[in-house]
């Protein structure tokens, strides 16, 4: 640990730290363009010059390229260093255009800051400026090459950090050009970070183009709720409209970056079609009256049919406060058990994952990057939780081999081993890996369940991939990533046991689950006593349940059996919906109550590793000024009330519906006292042993071998399937079109070629989709993205097995597009 002196202050930093980092630790921000904590140093921009007064290399040096030494003396404000920095700024500004007033970066521009703080106010260069033509880089990123200062941050991020290859730097010398080979949308689903990382206005946020300066935005720290990772973001709103979302640094979660789904998934909050008014039987009314009507009707149902005839459904996208209110209202009124899940499998999977995620095993996203061998079971990181794919890439860049065991055609921005095996074979595969990588002797000291499990290990029927076994044997920090979307409780349990076994062998093994929704973890904590809608449906169909309150949930639009849920909803006497989206359920509701988004009232979310993150709203909400005014002009009348501002947080509104008083405090989640909104802390389970879920671990093999059966899985993709972000107009071009993926061998048996229509007779009716034939996926499997335009709800379940003769080639009939039966939108 060398000790050095910077500007007369001493600091001790670890070996290998750069001078610029040591200064930062002291709170001295040395100017920088090319240096970035996530990207490291290249010494390209020459602006971080400092004077080394004492050390092996004296004189003006680049602080980002220089390792600290014992006894080094650094001066950051030495006249020589200051002059150097000033001149560098002047050189960088030679060709910089005179367009700050019309540049969207203005106001949060690093170059602007450095130019002003460096004292460069007048251009001395009177010659002509070099110019560049710009490229169209898609609907999300605006390109303006004239502003470039050649710091290379964009290409380093794009190619090295995130692993995509369609952005490059061509030319030489004064003429280098950062762009694509030809115009077109950037392929990188993390391309939005170019906006944050570019120190000037070369890449700017196109949807937010010309919306306003950063200083005018109502900005607030928030958490992304488009997947279970819960990345930290900063929200900027103005004129009652969310304008942009930026990445916010979170050490343990997303680091500096976020994915495009998180960055541009917010338009749902600004939609003109967002329901702002309460409705009773289709008639708009005030929230107060609608609450009273709902309360009276709920009371009436409870009185006539018994309190058990009322059910309340939350969802995994709602905040903890809302889920708490759902549980509270059910308990206070003696209603049926609270529902948080649509499907039983989802409930069981997440409950299993949550119960198995011990404090000793859990990994944060940052820790996942440090793994030296990663095994991914039944997960498509890019589709389910995009930032996890970026973390895997960082692990891979440090040399960790990555193995993905998944039936889907998984794509990742890194070279990895994909083992496309049928989802039913996954548990057996994990067992075989455990058997090959671990040994019973070391398992003796492990957790009793692990011990008994290893004792049961028989000869595996699915042979383990030899590379994976080899990598595991030498690995010191193996990480197990396991999905909960297409897998089952057996695989989830095995993944945990696998990690526990590795741990027992003295390695720093970790476990990383992906979960559905932003608050799947929270729903699972709440759901110890809960059922899923699937389990409750017979009671609705049987007429026992007569009223349903859906809170930020859309059973009609998301339950995998559309026909059945529609019939069930028709049988209800009363459907109350609280939501901020115009979902199918909201349209069908007898009483509808508007609620607020995370940007308006905030809330608490628990991400998939159990990290509690408390968010406050960034703005108050209401109908955006751009929508209330005539012709884009704000109104000239001034009123006390905010138009469309009646909505309150779902949890708050829900308690107003309750005939009985809902107790505020909840027993099932205890927030640690030091929880702060910045980084959050991991949730503490009330009693882990009480929640301990023991998945069934028998009768695993054989199921997948049946050649007469096919497995259909409905899956998440990066864009187009997640409920909130799929409403974003800027992401729609990158969505995977409604389709069904098949292995060529399976397609050949029908027979089908690429683009043909395939008709599937599943539990919920017949579904016609175009076929996409891909090699890198499992046989005996059909993969269908839950695209909002695909009628995937006819499948009847998100994972099901069908007879092989249930699929056949369909003839295109006119414009027989694979459309959903158009629901009221």
């Amino acid at each position, binding site marked *: 640990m060398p000790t050095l002196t910077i500007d007369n202050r001493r600091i001790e930093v670890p070996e290998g730290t750069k001078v610029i980092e040591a200064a930062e630790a002291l709170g001295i921000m040395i100017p920088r363009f090319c240096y970035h904590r996530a990207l490291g140093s290249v010494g390209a921009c020459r602006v971080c010059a400092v004077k080394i007064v004492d050390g092996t290399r004296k004189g003006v040096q680049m602080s980002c390229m220089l390792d600290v030494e014992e006894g080094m003396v650094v001066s950051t404000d030495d006249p020589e260093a200051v002059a150097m920095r000033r001149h560098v700024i002047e050189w960088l500004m030679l060709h910089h*255009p*005179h*367009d*700050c*007033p*019309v540049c969207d970066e*203005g*106001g949060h521009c690093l170059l602007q800051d450095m130019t002003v703080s460096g004292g460069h106010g007048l251009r001395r260069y*009177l*010659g*002509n*400026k*070099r*110019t*560049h*033509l*710009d490229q169209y880089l898609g609907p999300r990123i605006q390109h303006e090459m*004239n502003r470039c200062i050649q710091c290379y941050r964009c290409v380093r991020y794009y190619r090295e950090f995130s692993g995509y290859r369609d952005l490059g730097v*061509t*030319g*030489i*010398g004064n*003429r*280098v*050009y950062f762009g694509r080979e030809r115009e077109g949308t950037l392929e990188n689903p993390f391309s939005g970070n170019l906006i944050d990382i570019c120190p000037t206005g070369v890449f700017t946020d196109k949807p937010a*183009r*010309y*919306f*306003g*300066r950063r*200083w*005018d935005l109502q900005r607030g720290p928030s958490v992304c709720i488009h997947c279970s990772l819960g990345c930290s973001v900063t929200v900027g709103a103005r*004129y009652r409209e969310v304008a942009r979302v930026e990445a916010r640094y979170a050490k343990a979660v997303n680091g500096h970056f976020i994915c495009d789904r998180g960055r541009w998934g917010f338009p749902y909050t600004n939609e003109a079609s967002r329901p702002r008014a309460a409705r009773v039987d289709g008639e708009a009314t005030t929230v107060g009256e609608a609450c009273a009507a709902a309360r009276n009707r709920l009371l009436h149902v409870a009185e006539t049919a018994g309190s058990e005839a009322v059910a309340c459904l939350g969802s995994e996208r709602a905040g903890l406060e809302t889920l708490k209110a759902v549980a509270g209202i059910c308990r206070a009124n003696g209603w049926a058990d609270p529902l948080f899940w649509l499907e039983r499998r989802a409930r069981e999977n997440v409950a299993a994952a949550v119960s198995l995620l011990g404090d000793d095993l859990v990994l944060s996203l940052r820790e996942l990057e440090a793994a030296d061998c990663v095994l991914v079971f039944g997960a498509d990181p890019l589709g389910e939780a995009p930032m996890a794919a970026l973390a895997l890439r960082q692990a891979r860049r440090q040399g960790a081999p990555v193995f993905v065991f998944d039936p889907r055609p998984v794509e990742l921005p890194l070279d990895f081993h994909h083992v496309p095996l049928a989802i039913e074979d996954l548990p057996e595969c994990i067992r075989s890996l455990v058997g090959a990588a671990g040994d019973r002797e070391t398992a003796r000291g492990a957790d009793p369940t692990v011990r008994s499990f290893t004792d049961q290990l028989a000869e595996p029927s699915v042979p383990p991939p030899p590379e994976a076994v080899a990598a595991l044997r030498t690995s010191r920090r193996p990480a197990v990533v396991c999905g909960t979307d297409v897998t089952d409780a057996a695989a989830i349990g095995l993944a945990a046991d696998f990690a526990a076994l590795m741990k027992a062998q003295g390695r720093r093994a970790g476990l990383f689950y992906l979960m559905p929704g932003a608050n799947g973890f929270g729903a699972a904590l709440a759901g110890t006593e809960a059922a899923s809608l699937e389990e409750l449906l017979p009671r609705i169909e049987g007429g026992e349940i007569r009223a349903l309150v859906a809170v930020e949930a859309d059973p009609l639009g998301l339950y995998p059996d559309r026909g059945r849920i529609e019939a069930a909803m028709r049988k209800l006497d009363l459907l109350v919906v609280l939501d901020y989206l115009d979902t199918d359920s909201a349209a069908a509701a007898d009483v509808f109550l508007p609620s607020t988004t995370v940007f308006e009232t905030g809330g608490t979310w628990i991400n998939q590793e159990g990290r509690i993150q408390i968010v406050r709203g960034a703005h108050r909400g209401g109908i955006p000024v*751009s929508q209330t005014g005539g012709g*884009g*002009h*704000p109104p*000239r009348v001034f009123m006390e009330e905010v138009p469309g501002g009646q909505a309150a947080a779902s949890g708050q509104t829900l308690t107003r519906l309750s005939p009985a008083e809902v107790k505020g405090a909840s027993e099932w989640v205890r927030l640690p006292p030091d929880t702060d909104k910045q980084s959050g802390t991991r949730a503490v389970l009330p009693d882990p042993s009480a929640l301990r879920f023991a998945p069934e671990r028998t009768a695993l093999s054989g199921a997948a071998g049946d050649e007469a059966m096919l497995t259909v899985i409905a899956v998440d993709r990066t864009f187009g399937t997640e409920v909130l972000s799929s409403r974003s107009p800027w992401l729609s071009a990158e969505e995977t079109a409604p389709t069904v993926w098949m292995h060529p061998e399976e397609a050949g048996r029908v027979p089908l070629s690429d683009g043909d229509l395939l008709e599937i007779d599943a539990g919920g009716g017949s579904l016609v989709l175009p076929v996409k034939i891909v090699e890198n996926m499992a046989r005996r499997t059909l993969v269908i993205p839950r695209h909002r335009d695909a009628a995937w709800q006819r499948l009847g379940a998100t994972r099901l097995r069908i007879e092989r003769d249930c699929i056949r080639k369909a003839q295109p009939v006119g414009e027989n597009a694979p459309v959903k039966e158009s629901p009221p939108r």
Partner: protein
Amino acid sequence: MNPDERHYRKLKPVPPQRFRTISEIGEALNALGQGFVTTFRHLFRKPITEEYPEYKRTLPERSRARIVLTRDPDGNERCVACYLCSAACPVSCISMQSAEDDNGRRYARWFRINFGRCIYCGLCEEACPTSAIQLTPQFEHVKREILSMVYEKEDLLVDHSGKDKTYNFYRWAGIRTGDRDKGEHEREDKPVNVRSNMP
């Protein structure tokens, strides 16, 4: 002795004089008397006041009163809605919304000044990078209805260039607009062709 020290020495208080001569007392009384005489003489001078409603003098061009939005020499709106005036405004009386027109020019979709709040400090004019917002000597605009003091862009736009007759921001900005492409602005080279064989 360094210059600073010299400065301090100069500021050291002069020691009070203990003994004053009669003449010094006389001088002091004389000075006092002169003061009274001067003010007394003023009594009989004609006041230099210009009485406002009866006499309206032409104010200098740079006087600070009613704000206008000027046009560039080509007759186009100068304002690019960069928000700098609203940021500089100490009383937050300026608001706007920027947008892009069909020619790629950034402009103010709406622009509003609440003159009921404006203190005519001129910081907006100082902050304006395009010489769009300018204060004029026209100070007589008081109204009884407070809402009528809120001026919209139509009310603010004038048909001349105001004090700055020549500047045209889009001739210099290097931004591609309807009439000029990259490399066609003032002091610009043609756009670089990176694939050229010339180094």
